[in-house]
């Protein structure tokens, strides 16, 4: 995977920089012209699509887990070190999956925004 250059900016500093406001794309968005609207809408659509994708992943993972536990009676009461597998699976691994989904979302959402900034800056 190619390494991405991290761009660190302070929002206020950026707001103060006069040259950016001159970018045509930014002016279009500021004036809410049709072109600017289309641009903003593309970002919103990307972020909403991402949110639904992660939500679907969440539903699939926990749907499968819940159904398989219910249908097999907790994998026929299987135990590890005297603890039923159900209690282990619904413990730390499940919390790790939730945090992992959050991490995935955050990485991708930030990328969407960076891509958007790149497009706007190039205009």
């Amino acid at each position: 995977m190619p390494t991405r250059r991290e761009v660190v900016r302070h929002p206020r500093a950026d707001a103060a920089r006069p040259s950016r406001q001159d970018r045509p794309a930014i002016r279009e968005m500021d004036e809410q012209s049709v072109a600017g609207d289309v641009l903003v809408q593309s970002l919103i659509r990307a972020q909403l699509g991402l949110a639904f994708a992660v939500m679907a992943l969440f539903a699939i993972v926990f749907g499968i887990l819940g159904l398989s536990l219910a249908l097999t009676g907790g994998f026929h009461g299987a135990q590890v070190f005297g603890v039923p597998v159900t209690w282990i699976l619904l413990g730390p691994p499940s919390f790790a999956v939730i945090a992992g989904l959050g991490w995935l979302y955050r990485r991708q959402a930030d990328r969407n925004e960076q891509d958007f900034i790149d497009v706007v800056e190039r205009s």
Partner: protein
Amino acid sequence: MELAGIMIVVIATFAIGTYGVRVARTTSDFFVASRQVGATMNASAICGEYISAASFLGAAGLIMRYGSGMLWLPLAYAAGYLFLLLFVAAPLRRFGAYTVPDFAEGRLDSLVNRRIAMIFVLAIGWFYLLPQMKGAGLTLTVITGSPYWVGVVVVGTVITVNVAIGGMRGITFVQAFQYWVKVVAIGVPALIFITFIHHPNQASLTQPVPPRFANETSVKFDRSVSVEVSEQVRLTGTGVVDGLPLSGPVDLLPGIHTIGKGSRLTLPRGAAVPLVKGTSVNNNERWALPYSLSGNDRPHPLYANGSLLVAQLLGVMGLPHILVRFYTNSDGHTARRTTLFVLCLLGLFYIFPAVHGALGRLYAPRLLMTGSADAVVLILPRLIVGGVAGGILAGLVAAGAMAAFLSTASGLLIAVSGALSQDLLSGSVRDFRRMAVVAGSIAILFGLQVRDIDLNVLVGWAFGVAASSLCPLLVLGIWWRGLSRRGAAAGMLAGGSLATISVLLTMIGVRPGGWLGAILSQPAAITAPLGFLVMVLVSRATTSSVPGAVSAKMVHLHLPEAIGLGRNWRD
């Protein structure tokens, strides 16, 4: 020891709160900590505010009674933040409104919507304050033997005074501190229990047998209960059983029996525990393996559980005291980072209640007989460890429980009094303080009435109302340009008031059987989708009341700050 733990938490809370208020200089400092709080601190504070009595005490109690089916509950408490991260966190911060009513007004240019949102902030806040008051009363009863009302009044007063003098800046530090108190207080005992302790009957937890008393056990009843006896058992002691005063040993045959208030009964070693009628799973194998929801007097338990999960997943987005914390992030990017930390910190906390719940079934089965399983976390240390070490652990756990009600109740009180003072009065710090006292007093009064209702049922109500009113407003307001003023108002009113009415009916004791009863007592699975649906349909029908300048609002909500167009909605 327990009292010492509680006192330390209270004193530290006051000290940090007072220190914080000296740092705060302006009104804006006072309310939103001027958005100067770092992501780690903010995430700890959010968790500190979120982990309430229902999580600290109630989750373990439910797991003790119903077993593995309830393991989903802590998971859903955490997963609610995943949904908040996906749909709300960054845009809401970028919009720059302080509170949900601010968002309603700013997004829809409508004072009517602002007022409706405010009403639900108040409803959610007060419903959510009730379980904190109950937790407080219960904890002090267990620890000191004081009457229930003492705990409610004492803790309620401490919280009210602290909020009135400290404001938000103090509270951010206090909340962050209290998250760590809670994690240590539930985690350290759990780790000690599972590392060093081995109970002779451990294996019975997964076998098809009822829970049994490991030793001869004396059980005190501070209220009257109906218990279900599964095996004949010989009782001794004093009190009233089945309406007859006890004189000498009596044999209880299998069936339902009532035990009078004030009875003190002794049950022999090895006796099957008579369980409070219909509130616990009687067979350890069914308890340990999935979907042990039967043996339960709620109608349609699978629906009830599913509806509670819906409320938890969607409700977090609409909790006013949590949302206000997102405005203390410096930008949308940080808001996401904070939420991700929150998911990790909550995961750390929520793996522990299951340990307490499972051990409670072995060591404290008498709680299944008195119906106060919510107290299991508090009494385990002395039962399992004993001696000085047990005393120290008990003090630690009591401190954690205290931190749980203090932090959640403070956050709620800030949200409620903030909404009241800004919408009904001038919004000055003085009004805020006055409203904090009013709101706190009302919470104490109602807190006295909910003694017999499960902590997680009470919390489920607050989440259910949030999921049905403010959650649709936020999600559709952030992502859908077509949301109209009338649509938003109709949706909030339809979902939110039906949820509120169901909760109020259940609270005053209207509990019909069958599906109606199941829906009334846990309405979110119906009312949350209804809120969304009404909002969309009415918006579609009233396109003329879609607010103007939607495009500009979408820019404020979604554009990264780096572009330099994000402005506060007030500009």
